[in-house]
């Protein structure tokens, strides 16, 4: 990891500017922010349709009406997003976070040693 040992500031400030950390931060935000916007919009669409598009929501499609499918799809999308996030976190976030955490802990341990 490319930590500039001569840079000023705390250990956290130095690690904050590493490319690894910036990469982790980008990976976290590039999933969480758009996904939050998406599921909130999807949920609000459902609430707005429930308020203003009752004809559409009442349409029969096979055994159930649109409203019930829409509601059940909210369950499906919630379970789906949770599963997607969890899989992504295990693969793309946890290993990188661990690598940075261990580097920080090693440096802190070394700093303590130096003090002694």
């Amino acid at each position: 990891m490319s930590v500039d040992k001569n840079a000023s500031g705390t250990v956290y400030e130095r690690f904050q500017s590493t490319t690894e950390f910036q990469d982790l931060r980008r990976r976290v935000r590039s999933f969480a922010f758009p996904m939050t916007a998406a599921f909130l919009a999807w949920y609000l669409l459902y609430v707005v349709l429930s308020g203003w598009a009752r004809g559409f929501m009442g349409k029969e499609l096979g055994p159930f009406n649109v409203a019930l499918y829409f509601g059940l799809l909210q369950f499906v999308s919630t379970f789906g997003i949770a599963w997607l996030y969890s899989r992504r976190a295990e693969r793309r976030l946890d290993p990188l976070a661990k690598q940075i955490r261990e580097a920080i802990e090693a440096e802190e341990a070394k700093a303590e040693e130096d003090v002694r």
Partner: protein
Amino acid sequence: MSHETLSIILFVTFVAATLAITVWASRNTKDATDFYAGGRAFSGAQNGLAIGGDYMSAASFLGIAGLIALYGYDGFLYSIGFLVAWLVALLLIAELMRNSGRFTMADVLAFRMSPRPVRTAAGVSTIVVSIFYLLAQMVGAGALVSLLFGFDSEFAKGATIAMVGVLMIVYVVFGGMKGTTWVQIVKACLLMTGAALIVVLVLAESGFNLSSLLNDAAQQSGKGDAFLEPGLRYGTEEQGLSGKLDLISLGLALVLGTAGLPHILIRFYTVPTARDARKSVMWGIGIIGVFYLFSLVLGFGAAALVGSEEIAAENAAGNTAAPQLAERVGELVFGSAGGTILLAVIAAVAFATILAVVSGLTLASSSSFSHDLYAHVFRRGKATERDEVRVARISAFVIGAVAIVLGIYAQRLNVAFLVALAFAVAASGNLPAIIYSLFWKRFNTAGAVSAIYGGLGSAIFLVAFSPVVSGSEKALFTDSDWSWFPLSNPGIISIPFGFLCGFVGAFLSKEYNAEKYAEIEVRSLTGAGAEVASKH
């Protein structure tokens, strides 16, 4: 044997088991981490069950089934908001909070801001939200006993509230987070098992054909197809535009409030790592999602097999739909003894539900009082851990006693709106403060304090002038009318207002601590320097 006797036996068994757990937990509660965070030693699955236990209140168990039984589809709309809300907690909050906080919601805010003002604000908001929620649950307990046992006297209701209060004080004071978490786990298992049992029986009665169950429900309700469509309860055509805006407002408060509820947030501290916090939310989403699918069957099942009229005759709000359904379906499948047994089981589960939820709320508010207000504001961070835990126990006792007295006093009042208000305050004040602190570099003390007081104040202010407090039949005060705000839920105004206050407040102050921001950002995302689980 009558269902009342059987119910009491089952409930006493639950209480005995949970008290035994509490005794065990108290022996294993040695320091502040044990008391506030259960030693951070719960697994993701255990904490996920406890999240379900904390979250699925009697309002969602009895309330949503009742709403569906009386108003059809609109009750389902309510449960969807409660479920989708967990994605906010999963994607934005759970892991980062586990990595950067210790015991309370305020820890995350105090990390890079001036501790005394933000802890005061967060402590006040935590206590207000928890007490509102607690009061609604206590009054619900009083109402439940009269519904399930036919005790109509004021004395019986008061005695029930006092008993629930005393038990919750015992769980929290002696068991701390360890005891309370186990109470939640036991309750979640009982609730899921009880609900699953009735769901299977209801489906068996309808030949495992959901479509025919829904059609029966629609027919029995007397409302026809409209019963399966939105619009009978929220935003009805007679209410016009304000009714529909109220629906949006409720939806926003439900979906954004959950991740700002203090008793939910402190659950993330009970596991060893951020990864376990994520797993616990995954488990929580699974359990809560399945439970709300169950409640769909319970609600429509009650409408089909018991009938909306018979339910409304028993309780105008429909809160007895689930117990009535249990009795009916038990009779249909196993004969009259079966009905008695199932009714008794569901009544006992409902009490266990209330007891678990009120314990979680008491723990959240007493932890915040002790850790935020006493240790960091009054004692300026100089209190020892022993002192803190002692004060937390005393405050649990005091908060419990106050809740008993207020609960008994409020039992004739319509306080159901307090739950919605708690969600609105959590979404308007707590959520903006937490989100900004975790993700926005420029955020500072002035921003956090403005967001919390702005969101809290505007939500309470608007509700005070809304039809739930005065000027309607179902209001807190029915005799006079000072309402001018047309919506019963303030979220649509107060949530954006809280976010705006935080934004403007942050810009009005020049305070910015680059060093502390680097620390919280790196720590929250990597878990470096995070609190570890207790060794014992």
